[in-house]
């Protein structure tokens, strides 16, 4: 039996008078991987930022684990973000800290873990993601693929229940995309719940349990990847996929 980890109900969000999200509904079950697709500017990043409270919504609600309302004015958002990891297109590693310091900052300062324990966990994760020997490097010495894997490890060190990936391979050299996607695959296998915006259709087909197409501020179409990619029902979805295929 599956349980719902994330519930997005009728979320609206505009910037100034420009509506971006216009009543988004989305449910994510535990251990599922949900892929968000949609044209650039369709609001994928905005939706992901609303989910961990980096952005406030104008209407609607977002629930984590059925009982924590992210969108409530009384919720401790730091507590929510402890449970939700996020990785960005541009890595956003802290350039003044070594790889190791980047990773242990959260566990030490937010979770109050001992230094020794945090370092031990960080080293274990670095090994697991093929980053042995990078612990004392500064981010500017890493390739894009390494930097993005460090960013994943940094989020993972907080032991989140839900991971949000915002086009994490879009800034990468094509040769380096594979190693980052392998890391995501590994997280999926390990049973983490994932919501990811991506344009990597082959990968989405392979890993996603569900694909959601965002258009005009709503989830216009969703379903298993073979259905959405193979037999898209909506004209807009067909148009988007045909443009992407070119």
């Amino acid at each position: 039996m599956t349980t719902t980890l994330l519930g997005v109900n009728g979320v609206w969000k505009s910037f100034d008078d420009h509506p971006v999200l216009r009543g988004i509904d989305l449910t994510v079950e535990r251990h599922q991987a949900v892929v968000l697709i949609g044209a650039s500017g369709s609001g994928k990043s905005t939706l992901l930022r609303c989910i961990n409270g980096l952005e406030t919504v104008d209407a609607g609600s977002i629930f984590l684990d059925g009982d924590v309302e992210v969108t409530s004015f009384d919720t401790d958002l730091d507590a929510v973000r402890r449970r939700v990891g996020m990785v960005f297109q541009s890595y956003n590693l802290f350039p003044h800290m070594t790889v190791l310091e980047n990773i242990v900052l959260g566990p030490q300062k937010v979770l109050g873990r001992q230094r020794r324990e945090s370092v031990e966990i960080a080293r274990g994760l670095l090994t697991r993601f093929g980053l042995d020997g990078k612990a004392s490097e500064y981010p500017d010495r890493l390739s894009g693929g390494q930097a993005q894997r460090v960013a994943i490890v940094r989020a993972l060190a907080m032991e989140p229940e839900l991971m949000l990936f915002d086009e994490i391979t879009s800034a990468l050299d094509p040769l380096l995309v594979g190693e980052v996607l392998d890391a995501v695959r590994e997280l999926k296998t390990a049973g983490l719940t994932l919501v990811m915006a991506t344009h990597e259709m082959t990968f989405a087909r392979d890993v996603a349990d569900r694909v959601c197409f965002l258009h005009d501020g709503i989830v216009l179409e969703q379903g298993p990847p073979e259905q959405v990619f193979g037999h898209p029902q909506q004209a807009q979805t067909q148009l988007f996929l045909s443009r992407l295929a070119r």
Partner: protein
Amino acid sequence: MSIVVPAPGAAVAYVDPARRARVRARARRDALRGMVSLLAFVVVISVVVSLTPGWPAVRETFFNGQEFIATFPGLLKAFWLNVRIFLIAEPLILVVGLLVALARTLKSPLFLPARVVATLYVDIFRGVPTILVIFLLGFGVPALRLQGMPKDAVFWGTAALVLSYGAYVAEVFRAGIDSVHPSQRMAARSLGLSLLQTNRYVVLPQAVRNVVPPLLNDFISLQKDTALVAVLGPIEVLRRAQIDASSTFNYTPYVGAALIFIALTIPMTRFADWTQSRSRSRRRAGGVS
């Protein structure tokens, strides 16, 4: 000596020795040409200046060797006061500047008073000439004859420099805080760090690094502006030069004082330039962050 060309693909940095010799020879020739041209320039200027009708008078009044030898040790001794003013003012300015810059970033309504005070402070002290602040504090406060208030001119002169420069440095720090990309805050917050922790561990360390070159430039001016305290009377280097010059009607002591300032500011300027070029190249190497 036989020249061995490494096999293609060898893991060495190979440079053709003949090419290297040519490059070195050219560098030597360029250096020599530069020196010759500079020397010619100096000779021409010296000849022109010494042939100018007013030169002997100028030399006598500004570059008098005997005057220089007589007054320079006194100037150096007086300069020690400038150095002390600088050393006390500098750390205080950093503290004031950082606190004011931080106060201006506070968003909570509870801190509105702090924000208002900080903004007013910067607006006022950036607008008023430093020398005016020195007059106001140095002559004004002692005139109040308040119990327990220091009457020392050096104290008030230093306080005026701290207030005046604190406002500038606060703006430098604020620019540094603004220069940290918003995505850094976003990444920190998404790890669950609080606003305070985000500032302390992520934003401020980067902000401070970014403003080291402009801060050094401000300290170069501060070092010169310690001479402004002379208007209040303490015998620092400018006042000493003034006293010496007025007793002999010879201006060599002023030139001596100028030399002392230059001797200190030139290394500081070079150091500031160096940090600037270093941070620029580091940022270029950083690429995406």
